């Protein structure tokens, strides 16, 4: 028997303009696509849930923007879902969001279990295990050690040259004068030697 059409049409935002809800819909759709959720059926299921929750909030405060509300709702849904799956519901939003998304990326969850993303009831145990075991480690534990440069004894002649060099650098006019004097001497020498 076919499902009655009125169950599919049951949800309609009671406040806000259609343009506002279109924009909210597009934003959530873009967000899901950014999560690489390309399955249309799954997109629609999530979208309807998100928009319904956002619409309910909008009814209470119509000054809020539906797009912002929808984005907040999908974030909240994801936080709850990640918290449940990763077994830690008390983490602040920033941490749970980051850790959850990293785990989802590393487990390839969206690709491997396409209908389980944001499903509160039916998450396959292997998906949950994969999510829990995945975290990022950029480097091993640090064992900080000092590495101190030792002075190289440049030799008496070079030391003197170095000191002179540093002294000359303090007076740029002298340096330029010396360089020009050197250059002109070489030119004069070449000229004198070859004429």
């Amino acid at each position: 028997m076919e499902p009655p059409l009125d169950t599919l049409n049951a949800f309609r935002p009671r406040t806000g303009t259609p343009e506002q809800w279109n924009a909210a819909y597009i934003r959530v759709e873009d967000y899901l696509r950014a999560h690489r959720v390309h399955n249309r059926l799954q997109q629609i299921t999530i979208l309807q849930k998100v928009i319904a929750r956002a619409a309910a909030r909008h009814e209470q405060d119509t000054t809020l923007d539906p797009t912002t509300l929808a984005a907040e709702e999908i974030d909240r849904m994801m936080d709850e879902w990640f918290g449940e799956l990763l077994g830690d519901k008390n983490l602040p939003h920033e941490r749970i969001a980051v850790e959850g998304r990293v785990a989802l990326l590393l487990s390839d969850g969206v690709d491997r279990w396409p209908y389980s993303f944001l499903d509160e009831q039916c998450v396959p145990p292997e998906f949950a295990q994969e999510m829990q075991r995945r975290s990022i480690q950029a480097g091993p534990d640090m064992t900080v050690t000092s590495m101190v440069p030792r002075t190289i004894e440049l030799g008496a002649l070079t030391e003197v040259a170095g000191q002179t060099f540093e002294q000359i650098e303090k007076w740029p006019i002298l340096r330029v004068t010396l360089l020009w004097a050197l250059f002109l001497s070489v030119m004069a020498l070449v000229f004198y030697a070859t004429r």
Partner: protein
Amino acid sequence: MSVPFTVEQVDKSRVSRRRATFFTLVFLLTTLASWFMADLLWRGPSNYADLPVLVLFAILFANIATGFCTAVLGLYVINRGDSARITRSIEGEPLSQLPLGSTAIIMPVFNEDPSRIFEGLRVIYRSLEETGRLDDFDFFILSDSNDPNRWIQEEVAWAELCKQLNGFGRIFYRKRRVAINKKSGNVADFLRRWGSSYRYMVVLDADSIMTGESIVQLVAMMERNPTVGILQTAPRIVNGITPFSRIQQFASRLYGPMFLSGLNYWHQGESNFWGHNAVIRVAPFMEHAALPELPGAEPFGGRILSHDFVEAALMRKAGWKVWLAYDIEGTFEEGPPTLIDSAKRDRRWCQGNLQHSWLLFARGFHPINRFHLLMGIMGYVGSPLWLLFMLICTLHRFNTVQHAADAADAGPHYTMIFDYAVPMPEALALFILTMVLIFLPKVLSLGLVLKHGRSGAYGGPFRLIISTVLEVIASALLAPINMMFHAKFVAYILLGQGVSWVTQQRKASDDPDWREAIITHYGQTLFGLVWGASTYIIAPSFFWWLSPVLLGLVLSAPLSILLSRASLGRRTREIGLFLTPDETEPAKELTLLDRHLAECYKQMQPIRELRRDYGLMQAILDPYVNAVHVSLLRQRRPGSYSVRRYFVELRRKLLADGPDRLSTREKMALLLDPESMNWLHEQLWKQPPEKLSPWWRLAMRQYNVLTATPVTALYR
């Protein structure tokens, strides 16, 4: 049971004899040539330029003679075999039984192509996995990239590679917040953080490839030879596409073995470090090879740029040996694609090598290390000396012409060797001797390949000979151009100036930049034209002697363009010119790299409007990239009120006005701040469309529309 070979068994007196032979040969050849030159100068009318010409000639000839003697001794060693080589210490042993120690394979990177970096790493990792010895190795990508796009691409590629290879916990990524002291600072930072956890580190460049087998062998050689501090391999140049890079790789592959055997003959335990494709014993390196600053400021003083030679000298000074594993297979690098790119690299190396002048007389350095430093300096100072020598000779010749009715008769028509008069003009004898020293090693290398029946790997005997002749012509034309480049670099550095460049090109292209070529080479062309015209007018006979030099200079711009054309390079490969065994019988790792990269590069590029700030866009917009990026950032303590205000203002500007309104520095500041990155990701998705810049609205609508996965440096 026989005792396994170690380098400790190499007799010291034998090493001394080898060095005595080498330096005696150099001395004899230089003396002979200088004698000819002196005779030639003193027989003509006396001139004040005679002495400077002779001194310059002796210095320059000694430099050529050093290369020649190395090659001749290499030929001797190849024909006779050399028992004093470090690879003997593991010869004939199966890989599975070689002794190993904990090793970090490190790859310092700086804005290089992330696809090439991580595909190269994948190939090395897989190759090492196949040896069954992966457990002893960890991999580190040490990034100093300051281009936001490159940085984010590296992070994404790293996460993707680790996922694909199951390499988390074995392949690590570290981005320095402040890149102090360039590459040597990057490596030192790694050592300070993690160095004490490893016995060895294998240093790679972003374009290095090493097979798993070669890495295992290198580390095993270090285990077998506990007095060795650095073990350097001789990487082969591969993957050249343009004629320029193919000629370089052909020359290095054909002539390299003889020179490398010769180097090992007289280097022995006082060899050199070339900065990559080498293994280093970590503990003594940390203790003895941290680099101090040189007197004065850059470019001549300050921090040491060419760190590798100095590190080798410091290790040797501390009693650790440095060996060259010249005959180990499976170690590769890539060369610059164009003449201009090669000059840009030389610019850096030149500055670094000139700094070594400070260290020539440093207390405690081994004489051979001093010689390495001197040779490095001469590699660049030789060019202005050659230029000066030729200019003085030209002026000398002009002077002679003015005073002699017939300039052609100015020189003697016979050569005196002791009391025997050889009926050949002395200038010609000297010229022939110089040409022999320059070209004989090339001919001998060619002969070796033909003799050992290896010409098939170079495309067959006919193509090999043609390629060698073309290489000789190309190198003769390029030599004066490089001479002019190096002379300019040396002069600028001595005057305390940097050298500026127009836009930089990294990859082989079918459409080289004429503008860059003309701007870079016009001075050389003009110099060649003026020099050539004046010589032709005043001393026509001398003009023909100078013609190879003048031809290279006058044709520098078109030559540079011609040798940069990727299509021409591919054509030379199709017709079998400049083929090398690494192209005809490539290592499996090279083939894999080639295939993987082709797959990466054929993927779709981001749309044009978004391309410039694609990395920043991904780090903010893509939920996964943002999460990976934030996870890799170190949490910071909240800054002062003014710092917080600064970030708040930057974030607002980025979302409302788009990334075009921010400088690279501001973008980097945001990317380095985890709080800002979290905030930006959240707010980007929460803000109503009218509050976002059109750039962000486009990015959100376009992202992942045409592909199932976002555009990254890694695809498979």
